């Protein structure tokens, strides 16, 4: 009895989370220009695309867990971050999918058996050249150097990427960052480096904020999602410069939720969305980097590739040259240590 009521209650919750009518298939993503690019590249090009309903969410596995536990799954395909892809696959929230068609074409190994590849995006520093009439910052070291480049910095309110960047700025080789983070005192070292800019930071939590902060001059440089900077430059004609050095790349995946009532369609959709062509097509509308090597080749051949008729590769985080001085975020490390480091970051912020 209690169990039935509990199920009914969880069902109610998941209804509240979703709150929309049943459709052929529901695709859930982050919204904005990003989802718009997915609509054009994946949904519009799919034979059954007209039956796809798109919804937005704010990340996290909370809603998905509630739906699966209540056995009332209304989200069929979800766009997730890698640590969610790992945890969700481990906890049985996602279905395992066929990976044979892309597995040999990936820039990095897929994090779990549940994922289909999407894009790389990155946390990257940027500035308005007008703020630096003389010497301009070139490296992440400069971002952390308030003596050489005085002024406020914009950083986000959570720990991901900041730890990695602090270590690279402190002289750790990008490829060795996670070794240091796993070793004794590695995290202390990162926080010590963060201490040096603590009195010079402005925190942001919404992705559009860093662009405003830099435009209004409230900060001289800021971290941001590379796609947001790219969109501001390519579509709004803003004059921003990237500091690619020390950027932290994050991955983005599609997963099929376990218990979906449209399993066949969902599987077909993620397969269609992860072809080299689909991934390359997305880059026409947003400057995020496709995760398949052959998609990069398609873009290279097609330049000027962006829909406004300009080159898009200069705005891509994962060109070979940039990857040499980049950290590729390790979702396994964060799945292990995320909670602990986040609490510590909370203490650091508050004191």
């Amino acid at each position, binding site marked *: 009895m209690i169990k039935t009521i509990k199920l009914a209650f969880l069902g109610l919750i998941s209804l509240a989370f979703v709150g929309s009518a049943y459709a052929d298939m529901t695709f859930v993503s982050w919204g904005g220009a990003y989802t718009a690019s997915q609509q054009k590249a994946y949904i519009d090009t799919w034979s059954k695309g007209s039956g796809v309903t798109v919804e937005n969410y704010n990340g996290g596995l909370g809603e998905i867990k509630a739906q699966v536990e209540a056995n009332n799954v209304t989200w069929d395909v979800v766009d997730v971050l890698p640590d969610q892809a790992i945890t969700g696959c481990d906890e*049985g929230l996602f279905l395992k999918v066929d990976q044979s068609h892309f597995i040999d074409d990936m820039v990095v190994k897929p994090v779990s058996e549940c994922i289909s590849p999407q894009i790389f995006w990155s946390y990257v520093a940027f500035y308005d050249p007008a703020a630096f009439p003389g010497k301009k910052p070139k490296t992440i070291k400069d971002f952390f150097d308030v003596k050489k480049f005085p002024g406020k910095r914009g950083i986000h309110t959570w720990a991901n990427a900041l730890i990695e960047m602090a270590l690279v700025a402190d002289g750790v080789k990008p490829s060795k960052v996670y070794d240091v983070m796993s070793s004794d005192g590695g995290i202390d070292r990162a926080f010590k480096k963060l201490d040096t800019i603590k009195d010079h930071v402005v*925190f942001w939590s919404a992705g559009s904020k860093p662009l405003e902060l830099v435009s209004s001059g409230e900060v001289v440089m800021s971290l941001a999602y590379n796609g947001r900077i790219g969109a501001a430059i390519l579509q709004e004609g803003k004059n921003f410069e990237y500091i690619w050095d020390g950027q932290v790349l994050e991955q983005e995946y599609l997963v099929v939720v376990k218990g979906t009532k449209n399993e066949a369609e969902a599987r077909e959709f993620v397969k269609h969305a992860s072809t080299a062509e689909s991934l390359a097509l997305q880059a026409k509308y947003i400057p995020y980097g496709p995760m398949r090597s052959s998609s990069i080749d398609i873009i290279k051949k097609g330049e000027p590739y962006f829909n406004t008729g300009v080159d898009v590769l200069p705005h891509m985080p994962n060109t070979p040259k940039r990857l040499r001085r980049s950290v590729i975020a390790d979702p396994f490390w964060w*799945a292990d240590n995320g909670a602990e480091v986040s609490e510590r970051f909370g203490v650091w912020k508050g004191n």
Partner: protein
Amino acid sequence: MSSETLSGPILTSDGIPLKVSLRKAEKRNKIRAFLLVLPLLAFILITFIIPIGDMLARSVDDRYINTVFPKTFEIYKKWDKQDLPPEEVYETMFFEINAAKGFKIGKASTRMNYSKSGWKSLIKKSQRKFKKIKEGPYKEQMIAIDKRWGDPLYWKALGEMVDPTTMGYYLNSVDLKYDSNKEIIAQPENRRIYNHTWIKTFKVSLLVTLFTLMLGYPIAYLLATLPLKYSNLLMICVLLPFWTSLLVRTVAWMIILQQNGVFNNLMVIAGLIADENRWKLMYNETGTIIVMTQILLPFMVLPLYSVMKTISPSYMKAALNLGASPLHAFWKVYMPNSLPGVSAGGLLVFIIAIGYFITPELVGGKDGQMIGNWIAYHLKTTLNWGLCAALGSVLLFVMLVFYWVYNKIIGVENIKLG
């Protein structure tokens, strides 16, 4: 009347004793009344009682992990917690990891990771490599696969989950934890975040309640005493922001209060502050308090107004007639009469403020985050719903304590919404 008729039962016209007949009718009425409130009862049960019960259960529930490692934990309990556990523990663990099918082990490792970061990847990695181990002894071979198997800290962290119920989540929510012998100790200093956040949450909520009262009282007074045509206009001014989206209002404040925002610009232009000393009014605790005060103001004004509306103006006139100074009359006559509204508004604002989450998330920045933000973080990112439930239960408990204190001092019967 003779004594005979008194001793016999009183009968109704159809011969049934009156008592029975009455009871029957009453019973029917009771059932009817019950059926009438049944929908409400079911609604409260499904949306209120069961979720809270579920939350309380989750906050101490540790059964799952015990279904994955039942034998290991049994043997583990006999271990003296010195150095490393004996071969027997390794062996049962080895077999129980291998036996756990599908996502069972994933879920278990997520739980283990809450008490020691690293368990998750250790299990995942080992699971693949365990296939190479054909026979015992297992201890050395497991340590050879990953040296973390030889780290006592990992083993000691298991101590808190060997029972089907745990207080670990509650301890975690007040910056304590179990050590390997299940003694309660403090979290390491650089992880003590929750007590600090609790205090901040209550501080911010109390300040917001106080500020809304200070701002809301005069507004409500004007609303209640002005002639109708002015008070209507004023009422619209109070309600208009109430009808505007929370996000819109929050973002508007961000534009006004940020360092290069409207407010600071005006202050600099007016020469009141120097350009390089602009006030930090946003992305910190100050920002959270300012924005929450504005957003919650209507919740204070409306109860105040509805109570003040019922205070007859003749009371004040009488007091003044009898020679009281205006201030004295206000303090002795008007103020006590408006107290039920103050109580209602204060409690309402405080309760809403204590669980606030979107506004602190957007404007809190450095140190303006509240406990709601941590609950959201664990709910969505770490999936540590046990900790969420514990934090939520503490919040509920503290609320009940506040309510109890409030009832003792002021009395709940004094709350009035009009």
